[in-house]
């Protein structure tokens, strides 16, 4: 038996602190993938990541079109930063990204959270960020099972074979 078999990842604790499509989806794909592998999964949404668990915002995420040097136009040319300031460009680009993801059977955020929680994955919100952004419990989706302090999050993350991932 080699080391990867002897010491498997038993639990992942993923922190999502940003609210752009690519940040949130990195979290959701990692989280859902862990659940699918039978790994215990906790996902902690904080700061701008809270958008992904707010009922009114979760399925309307955007991606940044300014200051994103990896963003390309269809055809592969880099998107000039100046184009990003055209009104509607961000919404247009975000819509394109979402439709490309839908083609790969990647679900909208709310449905992704349905899949994760159906498999036993747990979703948490950060107390401090909620206080800071004046977010109330009723603004959050029902997928969220608890609001935690950072200390409570670390307590949750304990155990052999447990990993903390910051996306």
């Amino acid at each position, binding site marked *: 038996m080699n080391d990867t078999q002897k010491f498997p990842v038993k639990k992942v604790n993923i922190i999502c602190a940003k609210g752009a499509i690519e940040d949130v989806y990195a979290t959701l794909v990692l989280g859902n993938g862990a659940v699918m592998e039978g790994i215990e999964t906790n996902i902690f949404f904080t700061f701008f990541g809270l958008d992904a668990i707010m009922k009114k915002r979760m399925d309307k995420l955007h991606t940044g079109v300014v200051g994103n040097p990896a963003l390309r136009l269809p055809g592969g040319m880099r998107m000039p930063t100046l184009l990003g300031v055209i009104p509607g460009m961000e919404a247009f680009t975000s819509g394109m990204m979402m439709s490309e993801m839908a083609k790969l059977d990647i*679900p909208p955020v709310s449905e992704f959270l349905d899949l994760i929680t*159906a498999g036993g994955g747990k979703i948490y919100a950060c107390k401090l960020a909620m206080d800071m952004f004046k977010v109330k419990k009723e603004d959050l989706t029902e997928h969220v099972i608890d609001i935690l302090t950072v200390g409570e999050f670390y307590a949750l993350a304990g155990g052999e074979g447990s990993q903390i991932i910051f996306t």
Partner: protein
Amino acid sequence: MAQKTYAGVTVDVNEEGYFTNPLQWTKEIAVEIAKEEGIVLTDQHFAIMEFLRNRFNSGDALSIRSINHSGVIDVKTFYHLFPGAPLKKATKIAGIPKPASCI
């Protein structure tokens, strides 16, 4: 390529135990593989495995999301029927290759 014998039939499998020839699969064989995984198969198990096999045969990708659109069971029940890693276990028992899907 490895071989295994289930219910008196010798079948071709890969190193992880997944069928390399789905045509060799029978329901009797499925019962034996399930036993190895600690699962006792019910009609619900067979119904969702039939969905997975049909989807595989028509070349569609297998994802956890597709289970919700199966009309057979929802994802929560799927996790309950094949505890742990449901898509991996279900495809193994259903005699089709391990899905190369991230979702």
